[in-house]
């Protein structure tokens, strides 16, 4: 059971922004948990040797961060799907912001669609996507 009712949600409603911790220690902790051992995620110098600008945040970690925004906003809701497009690498040790906004309501199924973005300090979109959520 979601803490938010379908009726209480408005088209265009912003979910609270989150500035996630994508520092090296936190990313290493995630990689250990997910058993992702690629140095591109955990070593800036080795990532650069692969042609990346720095170590990058794993895509599934970004998806997890975006999912967390939704669950923080509506505890108990069901995320039916998250569909992301990785536009540009998200650097480890950067200060990104995760944003989400309601962009569709389906009265028949009582589900909503949410736009998701992760932007860097310059306001550039690094990850974008959508989620379908049942309240």
């Amino acid at each position, binding site marked *: 059971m979601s803490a938010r009712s379908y009726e209480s949600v408005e*088209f*265009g409603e912003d979910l609270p922004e989150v500035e996630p911790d994508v520092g090296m220690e936190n990313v290493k902790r995630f990689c250990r948990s997910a058993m992702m051992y690629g140095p591109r995620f955990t070593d800036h110098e080795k990532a650069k040797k692969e042609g990346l600008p720095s170590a990058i945040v794993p895509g599934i970690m970004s998806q997890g961060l975006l999912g967390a925004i939704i669950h923080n906003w509506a505890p108990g809701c069901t995320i039916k799907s998250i569909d992301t*497009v990785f536009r540009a690498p998200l650097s480890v040790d950067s200060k990104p912001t995760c944003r989400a906004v309601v962009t569709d309501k389906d009265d028949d199924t009582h589900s909503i669609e949410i736009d998701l973005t992760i932007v860097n300090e310059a306001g550039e979109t690094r990850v974008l996507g959508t989620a379908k959520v049942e309240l």
Partner: protein
Amino acid sequence: MRGAEVSALVILDLHNHSIKSDDGRAKVENYCQWISKKGIGVDGFVLTEHRQFDAESDYRPLEDEFGILILKGSEVETDYGHVLVFGVNDEMQTAFDFTRIGLSAELVVREVKRCGGIAVPCHPGRTQVGMLAHVRERGAVDGVEVIETLNGGSRGSENDDAQSLAEEFSYRGIGGSDAHIVSHIGRCSTRFDQDIEDMDGLVEALRTSRYEAVRVSS
């Protein structure tokens, strides 16, 4: 057109994608709802689906409901990067294969013009999929008159580089959001000094009117 500020009659967002594009996640109805709800200062937008022209979809009911002009173009992929195509018609669709990757940019620009449309290289400052790096390597493409100087998805200096390219070759500049999700529509647009009611009018305006790329706020 560069120079004095254009007195706006119409503001159109000339570069957007819907769920018809492989990487598009937005329904057209939701674009309209968003513009209306957020008070985005655009009079309409163009859907430029990747590597295709959507001849079937009829958005007139949405135009009527929301009072927003919805036009359809395409974004094709050439050896000089991605190119927006306005004024797509049957003749143009037989002139080259919209689905093909690596089309000759020169052919696209020439054939689009011959068929009555206009081809506009988009996000030219972007690596690989933009025209700038290819121009530096192989020279300019004959026939280009307009490029996208303001793209809502640009990063770093990409828009500045596009503007510099436009100034270097005396190209005119347009703006488009390059939206793939609902909340990104209306970030960048093009302000025209004449009224535009359909795609023919847009093509004519891009050729002859005064216009400028602008960032739009609600």
